[in-house]
């Protein structure tokens, strides 16, 4: 395991600036998630580190050494792709052992066996080691694919949306498992996704990427609670943050230059029937919580509420701000 440092990394494909001035340090043993929409430059970043693409400018250091001239195989990275690709003619055991059998590794048969079984236990596939890899469910195949990366103990794991092809339930299970395994092994991991829940739940630090630029890096709590700009604020949180004109609701203390107020559930106080300035439009019942769809003037807001809160569509409510977020005309956060 090792630190990975990216400095001023830039990459262009024809007319498209895929990546511009990217600076990011991933500490030894850290789980970093790059979050952004399709085309933001996330996958390009992984491919540059892996050596599958060459940067136009900038520097990549793995464990303190500049890897610019090294071939992918020399860089000591393991890549897990979105689509698992196992060797169909091999068993689960053989698939897991394969990366260790390269002659340059000079591992003994006992050492290989020990590592394969240890990793199989971690990804919970140890009961199917003798199965053909083609006779597994989608979730099991992806566990094997992740396991095959884990046996190697490289300097860094690079993962490109490895859970996105799985169904929701399995994805939720593997999220928890992957995070645990990473902590157990002390691995350094760079993971890219467009799913905010994956980023929030697994990352030690999240990097928000948009249009080839890294907009903010921080812990999930920092990024959620203290976003640097409107774009970052809008990336995280369910329901989506409410973006309102500065003078719509009382209770705020907007600093000079405020153009937009950002209000999440925790920034809104609701009192039913008193000095009403808003109305309940409709209620989305999600079981554990309700989403209240509220109309205030010409604006629509969505906020979370306890399902047992006595409130109905058409009710008039008083809506007040409590320490919301303020943004200027350029979308930058004001404090």
């Amino acid at each position, binding site marked *: 395991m090792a630190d990975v440092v990216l400095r001023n990394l830039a990459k262009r494909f024809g007319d498209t600036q895929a990546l511009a001035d990217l600076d990011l340090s991933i500490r030894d043993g850290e789980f970093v998630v790059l979050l952004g929409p399709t085309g933001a430059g996330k996958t390009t970043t992984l491919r540059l580190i892996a050596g599958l693409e060459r940067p136009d400018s900038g520097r990549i250091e793995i464990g303190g050494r500049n890897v610019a001239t090294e071939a992918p195989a020399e860089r000591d990275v393991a890549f897990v792709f979105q689509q698992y690709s196992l060797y169909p003619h091999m068993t689960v055991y053989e698939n897991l052992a394969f990366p260790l059998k390269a002659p340059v590794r000079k591992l003994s048969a006992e050492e290989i066996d020990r590592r394969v079984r240890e990793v199989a236990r971690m990804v919970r596939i140890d009961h199917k080691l003798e199965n053909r890899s083609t006779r597994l469910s989608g979730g099991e195949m992806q566990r094997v694919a992740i396991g095959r990366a884990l046996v190697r103990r490289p300097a860094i794991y690079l993962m490109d949306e490895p859970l996105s092809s799985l169904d929701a339930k399995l994805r939720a299970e593997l999220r928890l498992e992957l995070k645990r395994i990473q902590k157990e092994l002390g691995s350094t991991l760079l993971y890219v996704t467009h799913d905010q829940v994956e980023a929030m739940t697994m990352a030690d630090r999240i990097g928000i990427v948009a249009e080839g630029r890294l907009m903010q890096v921080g812990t999930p709590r920092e990024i959620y609670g203290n976003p640097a700009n409107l774009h970052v604020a809008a990336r995280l949180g369910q329901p*989506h943050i409410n973006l309102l004109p500065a003078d719509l609701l009382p209770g705020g203390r907007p600093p000079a230059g405020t153009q937009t107020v950002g209000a999440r559930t925790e920034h809104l106080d609701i009192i039913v029937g008193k000095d009403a300035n808003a109305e309940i439009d409709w209620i989305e019942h999600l079981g554990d919580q309700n989403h209240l769809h509220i109309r205030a003037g010409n604006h629509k807001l969505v906020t979370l509420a306890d399902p047992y809160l006595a409130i109905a569509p058409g009710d008039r409510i008083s809506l007040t701000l409590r320490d919301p977020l303020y943004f200027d005309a350029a979308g930058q956060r004001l404090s």
Partner: protein
Amino acid sequence: MADIRIENLRKEFGSFVAVQDSSFTVHDGEFLALLGPSGCGKTTTLRMIAGLELPSSGKIYLDGEDVTFNRASARDIAFVFQLFALYPHMNVRKNIGFPLLSQGMAKAEIRARAEETARLLQIDHILDRSVSGLAGGDRQRVALGRAIVRRPKCFLMDEPLGTLDAEFREVMVHELRELHNRIHATTVYVTHDQHEAMAMADKIAVMNHGVIEQFGTPQEIYAKPATMYVADFIGSPPMNFMRFTSGLKSGDRSILLDGIDVAVPEIHQDMAESELALGVRPEHIRFSDASALRGAVYGSEYLGTNQVVAVETPGGLIRARVPANRSFRIGERVGLEFNPAKLALFDCRSGRAVPSSLYQETRHG
């Protein structure tokens, strides 16, 4: 608009029973979600209502009229598959008006109806634009406009949002429901996504192996699941189950879980000793050092407003949804306390809920 009544509907494909004797009613203006995994019979049910499949037995009534063997075109319904099939060489106005043109409606009337539909969908400012230059959301709105412009008796939708990415799906879920709030069209919506069903539907039919396991409002299905299958399918994370073996007596107000007394809603049925499961929703768990029911934190997932903490207990992994203001260490010992009024009990063999006061409580407004 109209109601849809289904009586003992059954469909067999050779020896495979796709839908077993389903009966339900969708009232005029109601939004019903048929929810279940692939192969559960939800799409077959929808296709029978549409007239794209004929049932093996049973009846389908649309607005009181028996349409079981009517052709699809004679049923006055609109079927929405994926919302993306537009005529690329036509502008927005012509795409929306097309179904009326093929009905032979007068030009002025088509124009008026297309404009009214566009206003309803808030796309009246792009009526004269070409559809090929539109963003994804506007394309979907145009496709939806083409379905609703005919004002059919009901809408049938088969996973219309299935191909969208998560963030955009959320936007369209809200738009579809708000559209429904404006036009109140009777709607049957097929999905495998419990979140979509919960967010949009007035009623949900949860299906499994061709059988409707439970039919009710989203709140009923969530709070009072009839079977373990439903309890597990609905909710994210789903309901926790803690298995134990015991008998039950009518009037009991507690159970013994690993030697610990746990208060539950009053039991309304005697049961011989058998394998049971205590069902606990993640948000009905609190951490309390005073509780005898203990476990070690396995992992926690921060979600902004709240967090989901997984705890390893002798009865298995339990997920709790708690406020986000406290951080947990892996391995930390915690005590678990349940909200007794909200607990469900299940017979593991049949999967059915044990009758208790939970299921008789009057509904919350």
